[in-house]
């Protein structure tokens, strides 16, 4: 968290924002120009280095910058649409990229001109991500990549993907991986929608058939892909957790409203179940609130790993009760049509949708089982299980 001297202060930053807004009318400046200029002024992500959208300032100064731009009515970079770029690709490129890579990729990534997706998971490599089987074979001054990736949000709109591929199957699995930047428009890339049990296709499968990737698009050394990927995944965990919630924010509020508005649905058994969930939701909310306060005070705690776990469990149980409570209405769904939504509308659709969509909360972005392993080993210090997959060549592992 140390910053380069001379330290940039909150006042410096606010001054720069004011100056920038004075020079670039947030209403009349074309959106793309405005965002590019904001990047060049170092006000994109102030904790990034100068020249790469930042000011080498402390990270905690960023929220005030965003707030000032929002208050001025400035266009934003649609952060939810480019979340994978912002949350995962960018910190990895910053940490492991060459200067050329940083200069090439970070600016259009931040402005949203180029959308990024993540090409990590495979049908055979879910929780065990280091087991990826997608092969990258040397080919002149580049690589030929063949394999299948799944659960790639936004791949159908993405220009680039961060890609984990196996460059050496004869060594243990963590050692034979390399990390690439894959052009989604390259020949051999096929993106197909992957439909979920909700009826929607939020995700994609990406089939790679002898896709050529120039060696300049390798991030980190050959065989160091796992180390690079850990940077990506660490940032994924940080980005989960979200903002402050009011009491009864989220799914519990919808359930409580239904309870208040439809007395004819009430039973005493459901009442106790509702109260138990209300209590748990409030406990989870207070825990997140304390975590945010501690982070703001520079005291990060391990509770973050619990937030996703509880969130998944509560979403599932709350929507489950809501569906049951509704009786005949609960037996109906809104729409099974295969659609490709830009975003998950978790709270806007019906309880049946929430019940189904929440099933993904304990699978996507690290299953609840893996999260519990992480808590047990990293927070509680419990010993790892005996490993059978770390000493053998990847190609010899049972699959």
């Amino acid at each position, binding site marked *: 968290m140390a910053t380069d001297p001379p330290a940039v202060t909150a006042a410096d930053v606010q001054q720069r924002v004011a100056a920038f807004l004075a020079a670039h009318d947030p209403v009349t400046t074309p959106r793309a120009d405005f965002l590019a200029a904001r990047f060049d002024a170092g006000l994109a992500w102030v904790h990034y280095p100068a020249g790469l959208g930042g000011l080498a300032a402390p990270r905690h100064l960023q929220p005030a910058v965003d707030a000032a731009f929002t208050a001025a009515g400035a266009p934003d970079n649609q952060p939810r649409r480019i979340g994978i770029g912002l949350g995962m690709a960018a910190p990895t490129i910053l940490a492991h990229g060459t200067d050329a890579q940083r200069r090439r990729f970070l600016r259009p990534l931040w402005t949203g001109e180029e959308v990024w997706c993540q090409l990590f*998971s495979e049908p055979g490599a879910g929780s*065990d991500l280091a087991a990826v089987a997608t092969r990258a074979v040397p080919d002149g001054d580049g690589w030929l990549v063949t394999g299948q990736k799944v659960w790639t949000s936004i791949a159908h709109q993405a220009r680039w993907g961060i890609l984990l591929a196996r460059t050496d199957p004869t060594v243990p699995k963590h050692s034979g991986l390399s990390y690439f930047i894959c052009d989604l428009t390259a020949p051999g890339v096929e993106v197909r929608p992957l439909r979920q*049990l909700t009826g929607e296709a939020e995700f994609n499968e990406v089939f790679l058939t002898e896709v050529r990737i120039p060696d300049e698009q390798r991030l980190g050394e050959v065989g160091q892909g796992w180390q690079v990927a850990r940077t990506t995944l660490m940032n994924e965990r940080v980005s989960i957790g979200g903002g402050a919630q009011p009491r009864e924010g989220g799914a519990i509020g919808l359930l409580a409203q239904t309870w208040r508005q439809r007395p004819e649905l009430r*039973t005493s058994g459901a009442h106790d179940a509702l109260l138990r969930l209300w209590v748990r939701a409030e406990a989870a909310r207070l825990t997140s609130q304390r975590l945010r306060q501690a982070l703001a005070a520079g005291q990060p705690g391990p509770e973050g790993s619990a937030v996703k776990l509880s969130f998944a469990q509560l979403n599932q149980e709350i929507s489950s009760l809501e569906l*049951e409570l509704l*009786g005949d209405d609960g*037996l109906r769904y809104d729409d099974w049509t295969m659609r490709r939504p830009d975003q998950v509308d978790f709270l806007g659709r019906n309880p049946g949708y929430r019940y189904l969509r929440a099933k993904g909360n304990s699978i996507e972005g690290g299953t609840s089982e893996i999260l519990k392993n992480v808590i047990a080993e990293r927070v509680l210090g419990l010993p790892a299980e005996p490993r059978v*997959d770390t000493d053998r060549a990847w190609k010899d592992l049972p699959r």
Partner: protein
Amino acid sequence: MTDSRATDPPAATDPPAATDPATATAPPAVDLVETETETQLRAAVREMLTQLSPPEQVLARCESADLDPDRRLWQTLAREMGLAGLAIPERYEGGGAGWREVSVVLTELGRAIAPVPYLGSAVLATAALLAAPPGPARDELLRSLAAGDAVAALTVPFATPPGRWAPTVVADEDQLLTGAVVGVADAGAATTLLVPTESGLYAVPATAAGVTGNSVTSFDLTRPLCDLRLSQAVGQRLTDPPAGAAAVATALTTGAALLAAEQVGVAQWCLDTTVDYVRTRHQFGRPVGSFQAVKHRLADVWVAVSQARAVADYAAAVLAQAESTEAGGAAGEAVVAAALAQSFCAPVAVAAAEECVQLHGGIGFTWEHPAHLFLKRAKSAAVALGSADRHRGALASAVNLPAA
């Protein structure tokens, strides 16, 4: 081994329902072990369903948005195998078996997530008719159901718990029926609607003038619901008002008790499929099923499913006994058994389906894997005929554990 149960007379020593209100009723002695006949029936139904309606095919039907029941499968079930009339006495050309055998069929249908109107027609509607007093129209309809010529639906909202039905259709002086009933299960496939009203139970041809049915988007893809509207439709009265209300009550109790068998089948498929998957799926160089947390959760599911099977079998046996002793399906222990069955088996099926999705990981969350059909069925079935907490409420009254 011989099947002694089918030939022995009903046990004369069954304890009567306790009359002391301070204690729970003493349950009757019933045989919970499957008879040979039942085992053979189960094997035959399973074999047929494996051939005609594997879950992958059910899923493919849903993908093509063909949410109608599988008519070919129904023909085989109802006409060729005579399963739709299993509970109908032989004097109406039915199978003359009983609710235990129906329960066997339902378990297999649940296990295959078979898209047929069996629960609606062969259970709910049939139970209502059997409870109605004999008469030409009712007897004729029973014969058509037994033969597989007719499909009937009892027009009550599918979430109605036993004892909670309230009429929404009225008959005018000319016996013309008007009203609306939301969310009727299996009504889209029905040739005859059994419409309970304040004035008694009516039979209405599904094609009668004034009858409109709107398919709704059901949460359960494999059991379509229909909103019905009747506007001066001509019906044939089968019962007077008290007998109509009693027939509905019996049908709902019977339905709730036997839905448990279907839930057991759903749970069993989910458990079996998950066990198969985690035995072969490797992560971290090991079968996923070798991880202790996964093992313990599946052991829990297995314990729950074993118990659910005993509870569902008990419910079917109590219905069968009530039937054979002419005690009436909705009375006494049948009410307890139905409430117990839904209180216990509905959550077990949901839990098994939820674990199935979760332990399949990503693939379990996709449309292309049939697990979601079972999840949707299990969750819908937990709402159908009353949620578990409503059944616990019914149980509280039945076994004298009064509310606060």
